[in-house]
């Protein structure tokens, strides 16, 4: 049967799966996103010129870039102000949300006592309480008022997710802890907390973007000129009909929001990487 084996065509020695280089992976991942963005900007630029749209209605991207460069120090100062308030409010929301979640899950009665009020806090529109908060802290400390308002918005998802996470520990795993006579602290440290981590991180992601929204809306409401964040830049540029600068501030705000989202996603991926379904992708 030697003839038959000889007749078999040579199978090309090729690796079944080519491992792509890091650069190609990055390009593959971000390429379409960047391309779509560029195409959008290009179409925008062309249509504004072609259709003769007034720059007071929709300025072309080139004009926005010029404004961004020209007012760079001013915009960056505003960004620093907004970012400071947002990050502080977010940090406060994370800490208070986790602590509040711990408190609420200590005893059913504590939950009965406080949970409805937590919901009441959540459903009351922040815009409605903003003037009150600004009055309370005083107009010379508007930043504190903004921080409190941004925290109010960011707090609830953190709390709700922590509560749900702490309650979600699997029954079978609880039996393991009971069998080995784990103390209350051990049970919390080695079962409840790690089981709650995915929930807490999801809460943190939601709450981070809400902190940005909260900070900006609060600044709009406070909008008396005593705050100097990005939202104020938008209000002020609006009254001056400096529409390109409005757009410039808007873009910086979006990029800042994206950066925060990306950062919290990174933390989540890092902490859950090896064990949680959400971070495993298609891997089997």
């Amino acid at each position, binding site marked *: 049967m030697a003839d038959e084996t000889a007749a078999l065509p040579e199978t090309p020695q090729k690796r079944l799966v080519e491992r792509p280089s890091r650069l190609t992976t990055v390009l593959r991942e971000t390429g379409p996103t960047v391309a779509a963005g560029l195409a959008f900007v290009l179409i925008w630029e062309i249509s504004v010129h072609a259709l003769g749209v007034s720059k007071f209605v929709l300025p072309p991207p080139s004009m926005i870039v010029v404004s961004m460069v020209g007012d760079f120090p001013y915009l960056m100062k505003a960004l620093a102000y907004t970012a400071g308030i947002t990050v502080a409010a977010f940090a406060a929301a994370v800490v208070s949300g986790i602590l509040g979640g711990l408190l609420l899950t200590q005893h059913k009665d504590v939950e009965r006592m406080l949970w409805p009020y937590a919901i009441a806090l959540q459903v009351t529109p922040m815009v409605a309480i903003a003037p009150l908060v600004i009055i309370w802290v005083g107009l010379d400390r508007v930043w504190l008022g903004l921080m409190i308002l941004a925290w109010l918005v960011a707090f609830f998802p953190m709390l709700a997710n922590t509560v749900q996470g702490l309650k979600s520990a699997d029954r079978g*795993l609880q039996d393991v802890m009971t069998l080995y006579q784990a103390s209350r602290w051990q049970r919390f440290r080695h079962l409840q907390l790690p089981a709650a981590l995915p929930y807490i991180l999801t809460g943190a992601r939601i709450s981070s973007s809400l902190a940005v929204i909260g900070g900006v809306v609060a600044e709009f409401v406070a909008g008396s000129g005593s705050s100097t964040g990005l939202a104020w830049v938008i209000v002020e540029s609006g009254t001056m009909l400096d529409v390109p600068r409005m757009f410039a501030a808007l873009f910086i705000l979006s990029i800042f929001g994206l950066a925060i989202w990306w950062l919290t996603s990174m933390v989540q991926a890092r902490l859950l990487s090896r064990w949680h379904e959400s971070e495993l992708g298609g891997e089997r």
Partner: protein
Amino acid sequence: MTDMSPKLQPVMRMQNLDKVYPNGTVALKNLFLDVHPGEFVSLLGPSGCGKSTALKIAAGLAEHSAGRIQRPGEDEAKGIRARAGEIGFVFQEPNLMPWLSVFDNVYLPLKLAGLSRTDAAADVAAILETVGLAGFHDSYPRELSGGMKMRVSIARALVTKPKLLLMDEPFAALDEITRNKISQDLLELWQATGSTVIFVTHSVFESVFLSNRIVVMAARPGRIIGEIGVDAPYPRDASFRLTQDYAAHCRDVSGLLTRAMES
């Protein structure tokens, strides 16, 4: 009377044990069971006969309603409670912490007992070697097959060197080939460690292969209706399943189980 001879002190003793649920369901009625050192006892019965409940009570994971139970290391008169780790439990599910590596899952009972990771390392490594997972210290549960997860679970139950190992249908979710292999490994482990096992199952064949005593239970209310000794010598391997002796025992146990179903 076993009290006469101190050598025959049971590892675990259930006397007149009742379990009634708040809704009135009687899960266990008048349960008497002595398990002696070195025994491999199977609790066999139809679903709802309370065999898992009996095991959970033995482990202290459920409360009994009436009667007495004496666990290893426990002395009711002196008010001494069983020390954590005297009893090992293998659940129906592997029940591993998904966020811990194989090593850390097995280390967990020792960690809860206050042992440092360095001090526990040798024991953990040894038991992982014994269950055939020497190369998997750093794997995570999700990376393992069902059989391997169960081996981790068994390793965790044995790492405290318990006087009594309780197993609640541990192999029910495994395919037959894996189940046969892991059953045989379990027997070797049991012989090597000289531990005492109570094994809950609904499989006649599994119980005959593994145990030297089979306690058959009936449902509504959950109670013991008889027991059968399997005197075939250990070690038993796959060839035991082909013997006349094995077949005869399976027939006897099936007969008793049929009576349990009818009663």
